[in-house]
C-alpha cells in the first residue's frame, strides 16, 4: 500500500474513532444528568468528572506510548490538517482563555477585546510567515531551525534559552490553574489538586511524547468546546429566544447600554441609589487615606480618643449599651501601627469601587482626551505584542512540524484558527449575556430574595463574588456587587438555571484547557533541553533510545519544578503569562522571519538581534512593573522609566522593532552567508523542487 493511501485510511480511521468518542462523551453526560435527577450528590459528580477525564487522558497516553524519535518528537509527521488544528486549538487555549477571557471582557468591556484580536490575529502571521516554511524545513524544534539557518551552536543556544524562559513562566500559570480547578471541582486542597493534575499531564506526555499529547489534545478540545458552548447557548435562548448567541447578542448589548445609562444618571431613582453607594465608598476611602497619612501619630491619637470616650462614659456612669459600644470600638481597633496600616490600606482600596461603572461598548473610556489617547496607544500595543507573540511561541510553531506535508501545514493553520475562533467569538457574547443578567435581574432585586447561585458562590470564594447591602436599603445596587472575572464562565450554568452536571462539565472543560496547554509547554521545554542542548550540542552520538530517555527524564524534572513554583502561589501570575508573549515576540519573531525572507541575514546579526530584543523587553519590564521592580530592587520612580506611557505588559513593542533593526544593520555590515545557507533558504521556500537533493528532515 502506498503511503498516500495509507494516510487516507489513517485519517478515515481517526474520524471514526473521534466520532465514537464524542458520542460516548455525550452519552456519559446524559447518564450523569439522569443520575443527578435520581439524587446523586454533587460532590460525586465532581469526583466522577475528574477521575473519568484524567483516566481518559492517561489511557490515550498508554495507548500511544513510544520510544521512536520521530514519533516522540513530531508524532510521526502524519497528523492530518483537521486533527492538528484541533490539537493546536487545545494546545493554544489555556485556562486563561477558557475561564479568564470572558471575565476580562465582562470587567473591561471594549478594552478586553485586545485579547480576543491578539490571540487570534497572530495566526495570520503564523500562516503567512512561518508554518509552511518550518514544515518544509521539518526538524524537531524551533532552535533546530535557528541552528541550521544561523550555522552553529550560538544561535541554537540563545534559542534554547528564550524557549525555556517563555515556556516555563507559561507552564507555571497552567499548573496553577489546574490546582485551582481541581480544588473547586472536588474540594481537595490546592496543593493536592496541583499534583493530581500533574499526574494527568505526565502520564500522557511521559509515555508517548508528541504522539500521545497530540491525540490527547484532540480529545481535550472536544470536551472544552462542548463545555463552553452549552451554557452560552442556553443563556442565549433564555434572553433572546435564539440559540446562536454570537449573532444576536447585539440587541442584548443595546439593552445593557440603556441600563448603564440609567444607572449612571443620578436623576433616575436607580441612578440616585447608585450614586449614594458610590459616595459612601468614596467617603470611606478618603477617611482611610487621611488616617494613613497621619501615621504613625494618628495611631496613638485615635487610640487615645477611643480610650478617653470609654473613660468618660465610665466616669459619667453612662448606660450599659453606650459603655459596651465604646468598649467594642476600642477592642476592634488595630493592635499596633503595622496592623492599622494594613487595615486602613484595605479600606482605602475601596476607592476603586467609588468610580462609575464603565460603559461596555465604549472604546477607550477615560476622563480626558490625553488619557483616552494613552488608553488607545496601549490597546493597540497590547494587540501587537499578543499577535507577534502568538507567532513566536515555540509550543505552537512546533505543532506544524507534525503534519504530513507543506500543503497540510497551510491547511492546518486554517483549521487551528477555525477551532480557536469557535471559542473566541463566543466569549464576547457570553460576557454581554451575563452582564445583562446581572444588570437587569440582580441589580434592583431584594436582598431577601437573592438567587441561590449568589449565596453558593460567595461562600466558595468571596473574592469571586460578594454582595453587601452598603446603604442598608434592602435592594441590590450595582455598586454593591464586587465580582471577580473568573465567575463569569464558572457560574454561567447556574445563572442560566442548568443542572449541576453542566457546572461539573465546565470545570472539566477548564481542566482540559489547562492540561492540554501544560502538556505542549512541558514537551517544548524538555525537547529544548534533551534534543537541542544534550543531543545537538553535548552528545551528538547518542542513540535514539538514549535521546528519548533523556527527554523523558527532563520532562519529569521540569514538571516537578513547575509544580513546585506553582504551589508557592507566586503573585502576579497573569502578568507573567502576558510577559511570555512579549519575550517570545522580541526573541524569536525577527530572527525567524528574516531567516526565511531575507537570504542576506547573517548569523552574528541574528544572535545579536535576538539578544537585544529580549534584553530591552526584559529591561523595560524590570523597571516599570511593580513585582519585577521588587525582584530586582529598582527604586527610581516608575514614571521616569516609562517610554511613551506604554504599560510593561506590552514591552514587546520596543523589543520587536529593535530586533529587526539590529538584524538588518548588522547583516549589511557583515559578510553574506555561505552558499549552503542561501541554498537552505531556497530549499524551505518551495514545497518541492525537482532536482533539489537537500534533505533537512529530522530523524
Amino acid at each position, binding site marked *: 500500500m502506498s503511503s498516500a493511501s495509507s494516510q487516507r485510511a489513517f485519517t478515515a480511521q481517526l474520524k471514526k474513532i473521534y466520532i465514537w468518542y464524542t458520542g460516548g462523551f455525550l452519552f456519559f453526560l446524559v447518564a450523569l444528568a439522569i443520575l443527578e435527577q435520581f439524587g446523586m450528590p454533587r460532590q460525586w459528580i465532581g469526583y466522577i468528572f475528574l477521575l473519568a477525564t484524567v483516566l481518559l487522558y492517561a489511557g490515550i497516553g498508554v495507548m500511544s506510548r513510544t520510544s521512536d524519535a520521530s514519533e516522540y518528537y513530531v508524532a510521526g509527521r502524519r497528523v492530518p490538517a483537521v486533527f492538528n488544528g484541533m490539537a493546536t486549538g487545545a494546545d493554544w487555549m489555556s485556562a486563561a482563555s477558557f475561564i479568564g477571557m470572558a471575565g476580562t471582557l465582562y470587567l473591561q468591556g*471594549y478594552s478586553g477585546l485586545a485579547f480576543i484580536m491578539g490571540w487570534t490575529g497572530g*495566526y495570520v502571521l503564523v*500562516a503567512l510567515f512561518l508554518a509552511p516554511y518550518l514544515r518544509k524545513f521539518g526538524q524537531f524544534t524551533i532552535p533546530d531551525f535557528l541552528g541550521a539557518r544561523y550555522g552553529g551552536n550560538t544561535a541554537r543556544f540563545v534559542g534554547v534559552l528564550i524557549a525555556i524562559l517563555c515556556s516555563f513562566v507559561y507552564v507555571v500559570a497552567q499548573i496553577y490553574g489546574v490546582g485551582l480547578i481541581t480544588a473547586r471541582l472536588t474540594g481537595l486542597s490546592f496543593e493536592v489538586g496541583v499534583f493530581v493534575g500533574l499526574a494527568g499531564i505526565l502520564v500522557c506526555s511521559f509515555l508517548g511524547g508528541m504522539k500521545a499529547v497530540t491525540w490527547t489534545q484532540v480529545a481535550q478540545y472536544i470536551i472544552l468546546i462542548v463545555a463552553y458552548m452549552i451554557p452560552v447557548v442556553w443563556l442565549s435562548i433564555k434572553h433572546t429566544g435564539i440559540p446562536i448567541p454570537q449573532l444576536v447578542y447585539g440587541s442584548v448589548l443595546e439593552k445593557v447600554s440603556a441600563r448603564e445609562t440609567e444607572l449612571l444618571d443620578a436623576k433616575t431613582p436607580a441612578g440616585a441609589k447608585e450614586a449614594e453607594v458610590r459616595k459612601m465608598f468614596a467617603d470611606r476611602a478618603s477617611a482611610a487615606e487621611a488616617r494613613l497619612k497621619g501615621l504613625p501619630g494618628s495611631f496613638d491619637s485615635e487610640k487615645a480618643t477611643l480610650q478617653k470616650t470609654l473613660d468618660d462614659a465610665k466616669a459619667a456612669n453612662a448606660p450599659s449599651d453606650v459603655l459596651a459600644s465604646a468598649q467594642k470600638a476600642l477592642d476592634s481597633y488595630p493592635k499596633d501601627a503595622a496592623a492599622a496600616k494594613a487595615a486602613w490600606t484595605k479600606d482605602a482600596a475601596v476607592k476603586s469601587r467609588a468610580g462609575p461603572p464603565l460603559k461596555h461598548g465604549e472604546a477607550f473610556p477615560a476622563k480626558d482626551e490625553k488619557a483616552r489617547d494613552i488608553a488607545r496607544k496601549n490597546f493597540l500595543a497590547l494587540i501587537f505584542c499578543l499577535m507577534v507573540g502568538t507567532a513566536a511561541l515555540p509550543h505552537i510553531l512546533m505543532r506544524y512540524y507534525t503534519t504530513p506535508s507543506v500543503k497540510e501545514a497551510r491547511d492546518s493553520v486554517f483549521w487551528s484558527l477555525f477551532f480557536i475562533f469557535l471559542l473566541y*467569538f463566543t466569549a464576547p457574547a457570553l460576557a454581554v449575556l451575563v452582564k445583562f443578567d446581572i444588570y437587569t435581574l440582580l441589580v434592583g432585586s431584594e436582598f431577601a430574595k437573592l438567587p441561590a447561585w449568589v449565596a453558593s458562590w460567595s461562600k466558595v470564594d468571596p473574592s469571586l463574588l460578594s454582595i453587601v447591602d452598603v446603604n442598608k436599603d434592602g435592594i441590590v445596587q450595582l455598586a454593591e456587587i464586587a465580582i471577580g472575572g473568573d465567575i463569569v464562565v464558572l457560574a454561567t450554568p447556574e445563572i442560566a438555571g442548568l443542572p449541576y452536571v453542566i457546572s461539573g462539565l465546565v470545570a472539566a472543560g477548564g481542566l482540559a484547557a489547562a492540561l492540554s496547554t501544560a502538556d505542549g509547554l512541558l514537551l517544548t521545554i524538555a525537547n529544548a533541553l534533551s534534543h537541542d542542548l544534550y543531543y545537538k550540542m553535548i552528545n551528538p552520538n547518542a542513540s535514539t533510545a538514549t535521546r528519548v530517555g533523556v527527554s523523558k527524564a527532563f520532562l519529569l524534572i521540569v514538571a516537578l519544578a513547575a509544580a513546585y513554583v506553582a504551589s508557592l502561589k507566586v503573585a502576579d501570575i497573569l502578568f507573567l503569562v502576558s510577559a511570555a508573549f512579549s519575550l517570545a515576540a522580541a526573541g524569536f519573531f525577527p530572527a525567524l522571519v528574516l531567516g526565511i*525572507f531575507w537570504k542576506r541575514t547573517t548569523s552574528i546579526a541574528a544572535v545579536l538581534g535576538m539578544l537585544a530584543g529580549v534584553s530591552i523587553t526584559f529591561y523595560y519590564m524590570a523597571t516599570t512593573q511593580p513585582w519585577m521592580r521588587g525582584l530586582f530592587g529598582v527604586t527610581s520612580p516608575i514614571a521616569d522609566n516609562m517610554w511613551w506611557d506604554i504599560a510593561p505588559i506590552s514591552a514587546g513593542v520596543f523589543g520587536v522593532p529593535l530586533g529587526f533593526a539590529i538584524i538588518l544593520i548588522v547583516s549589511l555590515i557583515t559578510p553574506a552567508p555561505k552558499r549552503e545557507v542561501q541554498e537552505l533558504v531556497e530549499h524551505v521556500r*518551495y514545497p518541492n523542487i525537482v532536482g533539489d537533493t537537500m534533505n533537512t528532515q529530522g530523524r
Partner: protein
Amino acid sequence: MQLTDKHREYWSKNLRLTAVLLAIWFVVTFVVGYLARDVFSFNFFGWPFAFWMGAQGSLVIYVAIIWYYARTMNKMDQEYGVAEVEE
C-alpha cells in the same frame, strides 16, 4: 539546485500575495482600532461597529485570510510544478 525563472516568479507572486493579505490584516486590526472612537462608533445591528469588529468581524476576516492563502498557494504549487508528490 538551480532555480529557474518560473521558480522566481512563484516566489515573487507569493510575496505579493503575502503583502496584500498582511495589509488587510493591518487595516482590520490597527486602523479600525485606532479610529474606533472617532469614526467607527456608529450603530451596527446593535453593536458599536468597532466593538463588533473587535469581537466578531476581524476574527472572521482572519480566518478568511488564512483560508484564502492556503487555497491560493496550494493551487500555485500545482501550477508552478513545485507541489509535493504524493508518494
